[in-house]
């Protein structure tokens, strides 16, 4: 996986409603793999209707034309519907959890940084902090870069979830 920060134009978000059945994720993953389509990130969770789950897939449209990816996905019998979300037409969020090593001298500094980003400290150890931020992916990228100034012990991003931006009549 490449960082989604480099070259937004290569990305497109697919919001895919699937049947909540065993093996559906394997079918989607298998399709991407056998057709040579690249995924930047993938987030899966049930929807408010327990019969369905929603996958938010950030696809690499340089690996294959978006239309081809969508049409092949749509052929999977368990795929109910697909919404294509251009990045500019979507609200996106991603969550990052990171554990950083920080001595007493730098603890205040890092907590201040988290405050600026409106993140949270979610766990505190004698010489480590686990911090969290949920924001748009670019901000999460910035946050991750700044955390890089400290020693990151572990870091996990969720991959993005997205919904269409609401439109208002003129």
């Amino acid at each position, binding site marked *: 996986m490449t960082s989604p920060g480099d070259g937004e134009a290569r990305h497109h978000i697919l919001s895919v409603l699937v049947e909540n059945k065993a093996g559906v994720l394997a079918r989607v993953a298998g399709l991407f793999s056998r057709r040579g389509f690249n995924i930047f990130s993938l987030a899966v969770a049930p929807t408010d209707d327990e019969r369905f789950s929603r996958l938010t897939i950030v696809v690499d449209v340089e690996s294959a034309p978006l239309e081809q990816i969508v*049409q092949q996905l*749509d052929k999977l019998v368990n795929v109910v*519907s697909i919404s294509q979300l251009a990045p500019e037409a979507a609200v996106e969020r991603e969550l990052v959890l990171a554990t950083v090593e920080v001595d007493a001298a730098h603890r205040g500094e890092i907590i201040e940084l988290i405050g600026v980003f409106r993140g949270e400290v979610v766990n505190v150890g004698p010489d480590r902090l686990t911090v969290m931020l949920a924001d748009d992916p670019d901000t999460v990228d910035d946050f991750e870069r700044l955390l890089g100034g400290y020693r990151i012990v572990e870091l996990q991003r969720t991959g993005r979830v997205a919904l269409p931006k609401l439109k208002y009549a003129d």
Partner: protein
Amino acid sequence: MKLTGAQALIKSLETQGVEVMFGLPGGAILPVYDPILDSSIRHVLVRHEQGAGHMAEGYAMVTGRAGVAMVTSGPGATNVVTPLSNAYMDSTPLVVITGQVATSAIGSDAFQECDITGVTMGITKHNWLVKRAEDIPRTVAAAFHVATTGRPGPVLVDLPKDVSNAEMDWYWPTSEADLDLPGYHPRTEGDPAAIAEAVELMLAAERPVLYVGGGVLKARAAGALLELAERTGFPVVTTLMARGAFPDSHPLCLGMPGMHGNYTAVTAMQRADLLVSLGARFDDRVTGRVSAFAPSAKVIHVDIDPAEIGKVRVPEVGIVGDCQRVVERLVAGLEAAGLAHDAAAVRTDTGAKARPGSRAADRPARDAWWAQLRAWQQEFPLHYEDGAGDTLKPQMVVEALRDLSSPDTVVVAGVGQHQMWASQYWRFEHPYTWVNSGGAGTMGFAVPAAIGAKVGRPEKTVWAIDGDGCFQMTAQELVTAAAERIPVKVAILNNAYLGMVRQWQEMFYAERYSEVYLSPDLPDYVKWAEAMGCVGFRADSPEEVGPAIEKANAIDDRPVVVDFRTDAFEKVFPMVPAGGSNDDIVVHPAQSPNRPAR
């Protein structure tokens, strides 16, 4: 009514209208084999599960109905993987039922356990692991629905043994809504705006070609295609999967395009200004190097699978829909533009007459195009050289088979040189008379597929034209044919080589022949045929060919195998080298000096 899962499965198949299935029992599927004894469904006991799958394919390809195969878990299931992959590539409707270990044992590496739904995910249109007996009727109904609608294809239903043994209350789903397929909605009606655009392109074309693929046969659109062709006067090429969709004897027919297509069909596509692709998928064997394919053509692409449109070549007009319906609407559009049906005019290459004053009356003349096509046909017909002395040419055997058999004979081929010669030299006049493995290129397809075809069309003569390499892969199914009294005929074009590989090694590997020699006598095909309960005989020389075929055609109570000893050095021409442009088509060496410079 209380039934066991096994009884419900068989009753579901009966309710679905299944008349025959091909299979082989084993541990996990045992419960289902008991109610088969009481069923109206004929079961053909194969000798290897791969045979069951290919028989089901042959049956499906000649009847248009889903072929059904039933096998046990583990190795039984993995043996049917090749037919599933084959059917997936060629869009053949297949329903394969596999036994599975009990649900409680799934995931424990139990005896004969295999995750067959996982294995076949990428080579089935869909598959199901049934975990409750009450889901069986709905799943079977959904399986047939998915296999036979939209773009047809193979499906697999995996049935654990405890589910077969459990009891359920019988029901049968009465509507599509009962099938629980919220994400499955094939589109069959073409978009009217796109159809109107296509009509305009067709009216404006000067060098058109109708590029006909297997989808036309799947959609049972041969009649509609004939109407479209005769109304437009457009030349027709039929791909390997579409042989028979348009009669080879028709004056508009140019025959097969592609890697081993004839010069005129290949070159017509290259020079066309409009390709009307009907149920074809721009396969690499047809296009050659894609960037050099039909460079000046606009493309109308009709396919029921939206993912095929633009997958290889971006069309000017893409139409998602059933070929029959779309072609009928194209015909209606042409009619509205003033183009009447005029079959007589077609036969003089002028195409149908347009009503005076109509838009169609202004369409460009295509006389120059037809003159060019006829000139190519004249200069570069399919060609082979007669053998010296007793040398038996494989093409001559195919021609003799064709000339001595009824035109509605079903011809079945394996994969390789013999397949290409069969497709080139047979004259296909009727749809569903050609059965072969196209996309997957599965050697060993012919014998079992011929058996399935004969079961589906018992009133027709079925000739498998096979190679010696292919025959050795699945010949044991002739035991099935003999035991079940399925009188297929097999012509082995025995050149003692894996001939197509030999041809490539000769042409592209400096005649360094690596692992391609088989021997004409090992095995002894005549004795082998006899040992399997068939009649077997041999033809070594040209004069023995006719009598051998007539003798074979006269036998109708047993399978027949004829061992034709053919020239080992014969190559398939024309040929577009793999990865090359179709402009670089290599014709038979005897025709090469005449070849015009590009």
